């Protein structure tokens, strides 16, 4: 299973941006070209005249291989070249230089409902859309019932899709696409549609496709959760170049953390609230500020905040999020034993210790809040602090951390004499 399914090398794509035509109109007319013809010829002869067009590189020297059965995510900000890359691999547009070799039948899903026609019925659109995506009529007929069942539109099969609700429309479109059966599937941002329930269903279907059928998939999405869930490997594009390629957790962490290498101690600007944060910081066991901690050591979170008057019921709290943006835990001063009060006017300095052997290796963020829970929010600082945990607790070397769940549980293992022994600590 180590065969290469797709090999891209030195792939570049440039567009000519014509400043003049952009300023004036979105499209060209024959008239424009005829009028500018003499000038263009002259400038071609002269060569030293100031050019009105500029070359924009959507992709520059992209090289990578994808193995058969691999699911590769492509992430990056808008305009990084993700969609252009998929369009080239799908032969919608040609590269300017370089190339790609593809080993197997390619199917692409660059948009849900491509080629759907509002005037045609659901049944007609299934055949139309299927054929456009590359299925033969026999293939569609064979999968027809399955598609209709997945989309849940049995009663409306012979209604023009313009009378469908948007949800039905999207369901039908995704259903057709999901039953496409290529060896290499290129998917662009198709999960960003429909309601939450349907998105889950789509994700589930993608899961099936990935795990059961062992297809090679290239997956573009802004949905980091979906990327983390589906992809084993990731490519991070930035301004048309590969910034990082590697295992998903690493690349996603780099993507999310890019450009915000946070200092260990942060001073906050005051906001016009009766209770505001002033300073927050992260400290290691020896009391030195740091953003990188061993999983076998505790992390000390310190913060200072000021109250202009006494606020009964005020709590200070923080949440820790992993790199996917999932909340790992929440903690507030009112959980302290014995209780700590922060209700009096003036400045308070608090520290909270995140115990060792709790967080798995990876990147984490901390949100801070001053609030009376469910009543009033005084100050809130999202991603105020960031840090990373390195090394497995206890030096464990089995699976990579992203396969160990959300936290490390310090489970006590014992060898017992026989089954059904009395539980004793």
């Amino acid at each position, binding site marked *: 299973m180590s065969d290469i399914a797709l090999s891209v090398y030195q792939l570049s794509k440039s567009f000519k941006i014509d400043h003049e035509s952009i300023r004036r109109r979105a499209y060209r007319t024959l008239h424009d070209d005829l009028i500018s013809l003499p000038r263009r010829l002259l400038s071609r002869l002269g060569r030293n005249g100031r050019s009105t067009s500029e070359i924009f590189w959507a992709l520059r020297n992209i090289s990578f291989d994808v193995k058969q059965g691999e699911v590769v995510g492509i992430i990056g900000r808008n305009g990084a070249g993700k969609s252009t890359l998929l369009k080239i691999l799908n032969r919608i547009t040609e590269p300017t230089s370089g190339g790609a070799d593809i080993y197997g039948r390619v199917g692409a899903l660059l948009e849900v409902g491509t*080629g759907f026609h509002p005037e045609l019925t659901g049944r007609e659109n299934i055949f139309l859309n299927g054929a456009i995506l590359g299925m033969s009529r026999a293939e569609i007929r064979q999968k027809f019932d399955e598609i209709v069942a997945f989309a849940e539109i049995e009663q409306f099969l012979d209604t023009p899709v313009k009378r469908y609700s948007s949800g039905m429309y999207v369901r039908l479109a995704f259903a057709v696409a999901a039953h496409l059966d290529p060896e290499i599937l290129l998917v662009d941002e198709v999960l960003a549609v429909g309601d939450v329930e349907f998105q889950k269903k789509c994700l589930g279907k993608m899961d099936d496709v990935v795990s059961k059928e062992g297809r090679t998939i290239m997956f573009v999405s802004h949905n980091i959760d979906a990327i983390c869930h589906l992809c084993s490997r990731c490519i991070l594009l930035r301004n048309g170049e590969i910034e990082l390629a590697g295992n998903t957790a690493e690349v996603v962490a780099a993507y999310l953390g890019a450009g915000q290498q946070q200092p260990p101690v942060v001073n906050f600007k005051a906001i016009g609230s009766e209770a505001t944060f002033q300073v927050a910081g992260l400290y290691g066991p020896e009391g030195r500020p740091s953003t990188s901690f061993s999983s076998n050591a505790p992390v000390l979170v310190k913060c200072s905040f000021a109250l202009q008057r006494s606020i009964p019921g005020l709590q200070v709290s923080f949440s820790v999020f992993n790199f996917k943006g999932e909340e790992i835990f929440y903690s507030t001063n009112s959980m302290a034993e014995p209780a700590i009060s922060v209700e009096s006017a003036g400045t308070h300095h608090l520290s909270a210790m995140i115990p060792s052997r709790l967080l798995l290796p990876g990147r984490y963020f901390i949100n801070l809040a001053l609030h009376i829970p469910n009543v009033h929010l005084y100050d809130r600082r999202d991603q105020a602090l960031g840090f990373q945990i390195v090394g497995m607790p206890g030096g464990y070397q089995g699976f990579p951390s992203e396969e160990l769940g959300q936290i490390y549980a310090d489970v006590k293992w014992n060898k017992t004499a026989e089954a059904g022994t009395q539980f004793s600590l």
Partner: protein
Amino acid sequence: MIRRKIADKVDPLNAESPILVAKATPPVTPPSGRARNQKPTLRIRPTQGWAALNVGELWRYRDLLWILVNRDIKLLYKQTALGFGWVALQPLIGANILALIFGRIAKLPSDGAPYLLFVFCGLTAWTYFSNSMQRASNSLIRNSQLVSKVYFPRMLIPLATMFAVLVDFAVMIVMLFIFMGIYGFPPTFRLLAIPGFLLLMMLAATGVALWFSAVSVKYRDTSYALPFFAQIWMYASPVVYPTSMVTNVVSAPWPTVYALNPAVGFIEGFRWAVLGHSALNLNILLLTIVMSLFLLFSGAFFFRRVERGFADVI
């Protein structure tokens, strides 16, 4: 599995497919070592210059062609009260207006046939040619969403229109037969030549449509220019007048020049098949065949040459 099969058959060392690979710039280094001992199903390279027609690929996508044809037919008269009635009504009204103006008032000759039948005969051929040309020319723009989002041979879109317009043609042929009955023209074996002329018409119209649709992606002017162009072309063709009227007036090279217009050949061919006499001769027929093929191939090669930029421009 498929990959293995292909790999077994082909010389593993950089055997390049002549169809998918044109020249690459700059010279591309081969991919990593492992991939080199297999033959890729598909190579993506920048292409330059003229590309092969790749008829095989068109054939592989015939299901899509059929479905697009179906869609075009279904959509054309959707949500109109008369539906396909329009297909019959449009040429009927058109033919009567032409018969009134050119037959009754201007008294143009019609080679001895009843003028209405004469003009309807010409219109049957011309309407297919003009409709398919005009509808196919805009087809890529109408389907820009498809062009920019999925891959398939782009030629299928104008081609589908060429077939969809055949429905209109079929309706007109039936009406033509009814007119023949009304005017007492018995069917003859000459009618069997109609499919041949139809084929010529389709070839020529496809060629023109490919030219215009390819140009229209970049220059939207075509959609404005085409109606005039079609009208001028119609009067340059023997629709409302017989070819004999032209050949009787001009001398030596001009009748041949006139016949360079492929519409002359197939319209007169139609008249010959239906009415029994026309100016059609072997010269005109050969010229028409040559011109139709020339239009088809030049259009197809031009289309192939520019289609690679469609998605970026449309």
